[in-house]
């Protein structure tokens, strides 16, 4: 088992290297001195030209690309992400402030969509052909067709403005202290974020369940005289679950993408929101680093999903 995890991580490293390489290439090509990416901008103006030159030397700025890349990479691994062009804030600080908010939103949405989607998809499969199934299918289609931000807008209009049940945006309402006070703010964004994914999971879970139920071992289970609920749950659902969980890995890139938009609509102070601001202000260093971060997150998450799959499916674990 451990070797499996180790192997998966090992495969990741070349990919990560290539991506960091591309990111640095992008950084290098964009206008702006590399120095301004490494040093707080407000200090540059105050510096003595000679000292500046010496600094450039020490940062290896006169050296070939590969060396600079390496120095930069080492810096990144030590948590030095450079500085944002707007405001000169350290990028790592930006991350520290914003990532937890995004995680809060993303994880909530992921959990909701996986659970609700699996259940609805299974119900759809078990009631196949009946009205329940048709209604669920159409609802699912609606879920993937309505743009999320539109959904968010409508939700804000109804629940925020007209009915006043929930706050219209932001993560914290002034005066909120405990975790529970923050929940109302979390409700709309996470639900809206999870809608599209729930619809996707539901359809996938349905077809996975139907596929599992059509397999030979279901007939064998039935021939043993065990009750239907057990066949559906322990034999059907259990086997149908594996592909659905694997799909979490595929859903992660989508989730991060949707995150960006939803954070904008609800003014949620996460890293996605920051990304949009950075793009709008052409803040290349910040744009690059956030992009890098998102890719690495996806890669790491896919390893986690592979490990999860090995836990669930003995064939993978014991090496077929």
């Amino acid at each position, binding site marked *: 088992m451990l070797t499996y995890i180790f192997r998966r991580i090992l495969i990741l490293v070349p*990919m990560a290297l*290539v*991506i960091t390489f*591309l990111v640095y290439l*992008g950084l290098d090509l*964009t206008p702006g001195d590399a120095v301004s990416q490494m040093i707080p901008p407000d200090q540059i103006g105050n510096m003595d030209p000679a000292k500046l030159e010496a600094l450039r030397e020490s940062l290896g700025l006169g050296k070939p690309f590969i060396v600079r890349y390496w120095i930069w990479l080492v810096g990144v691994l030590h948590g030095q992400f450079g500085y944002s062009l707007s405001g000169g804030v350290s990028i790592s600080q930006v991350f520290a402030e914003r990532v937890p908010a995004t995680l809060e939103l993303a994880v909530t949405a992921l959990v909701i969509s996986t659970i609700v989607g699996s259940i609805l998809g299974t119900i759809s499969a078990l009631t196949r052909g009946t009205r329940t199934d048709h209604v669920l299918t*159409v609802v699912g*289609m*609606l879920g*993937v*067709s*309505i*743009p*999320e*931000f*539109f959904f968010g*807008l*409508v939700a*804000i*209009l109804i629940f925020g*403005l*007209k009915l006043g049940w929930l706050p*219209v945006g932001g993560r914290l309402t002034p005066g909120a202290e405990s975790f529970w006070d923050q929940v109302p703010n979390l409700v709309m964004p996470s639900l809206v974020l999870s809608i599209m994914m729930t619809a996707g999971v539901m359809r996938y879970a349905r077809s996975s369940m139907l596929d599992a139920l*059509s397999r030979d071992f279901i007939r064998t289970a039935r021939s043993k005289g065990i009750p239907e609920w057990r066949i559906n749950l322990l034999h059907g659902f259990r086997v149908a679950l594996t592909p659905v969980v694997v799909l979490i890995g595929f859903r*992660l*890139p*989508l*989730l*991060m*993408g*949707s995150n*960006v*938009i939803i954070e*904008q*609509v609800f003014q949620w102070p996460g890293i996605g929101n920051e*990304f*949009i601001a950075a*793009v*709008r202000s*052409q803040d*290349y260093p910040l*744009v*690059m680093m*956030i*992009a890098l971060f*998102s*890719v690495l997150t*996806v*890669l790491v998450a896919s390893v986690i999903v592979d490990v999860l799959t090995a836990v669930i499916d003995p064939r993978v674990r014991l090496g077929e």
Partner: protein
Amino acid sequence: MSPQRLPRTALDRDFDRILERERTGKIKAQSQSRFWSKFVSNRLAVIGLTIFVVIVLMSVFAPLLSPYDPQKIDLRAMMLTPSAEHWFGTDRTGRDVFARVLYGGRISILVGLGSAVLSAMIGVAIGVYSGYVGGWLDAIAMRVSEIFMSFPQIILVLLLVTILGQSLGNLILIFTLTGWGGIYRMARARMLSIREEEYVQALRSFGLGRALIAYKHMLPNALGPIMVNITLSTAAFILQEAGLSFLGLGVPMSTPTWGNILNVAQDLRVLENNWWIWLPVGSVISLFVLSVNFIGDGLRDATDPSQQG
């Protein structure tokens, strides 16, 4: 027969109906191709196709449907509610919203469909050949597509927008670049499974060139999933364009698209008080994408040989 027969269910009635039809000889041979008959029998697919065609036609024939210029500012007619003169009312600078929706549709549909088709062409061209032949082309293409696909799409798109700048052409280009990977992999996977079939090996033994075999003989068998993929990609790209333009980062604001029009809804006051500016547009997008999804679903059912009752 035993007197203790089980009660008749709906399924039983269906079966009895089939038996009755066969008894009275009402079975006709399948004259139409199986594909069409399956597609047409799918109600949702037909509804989807209808809606799709209607919206496309309305956008294409926009000048016939609205006398207004979508860009023309009329400061005397700002923020008017829907009326007989302005079916969807006017926006903040007096432009007729209905006209903007119609003309905006042209761009949105162009971006969506165009990007989907372009990325399909590239993805299929590479995927079909490299899936069959393998070799270094395949290895490179796989690595490249893998890298592209590990980026969340919006982030990659915005990254490229930052670098390349915002324009309609750039957007289509960027969408194509980020989208070809998916179709490439799917086409390649189909090729890999078809490759082992006997007729392919037979063709090879006849001395046919590999490109010819790949494109002329194997490709038609992969067309089903490819068509499904194109429709679903179209839906995805339209949603993406809408999202990006809504944020002001997609098609430049000077050209109306469905997403652009929604941009103003970021202002909470507009959201609350001027529903006609954003609600109809959003509904049109949803309706259009829904219809595309219905069509895609119908295509999938019609081309999938393993469907059962």
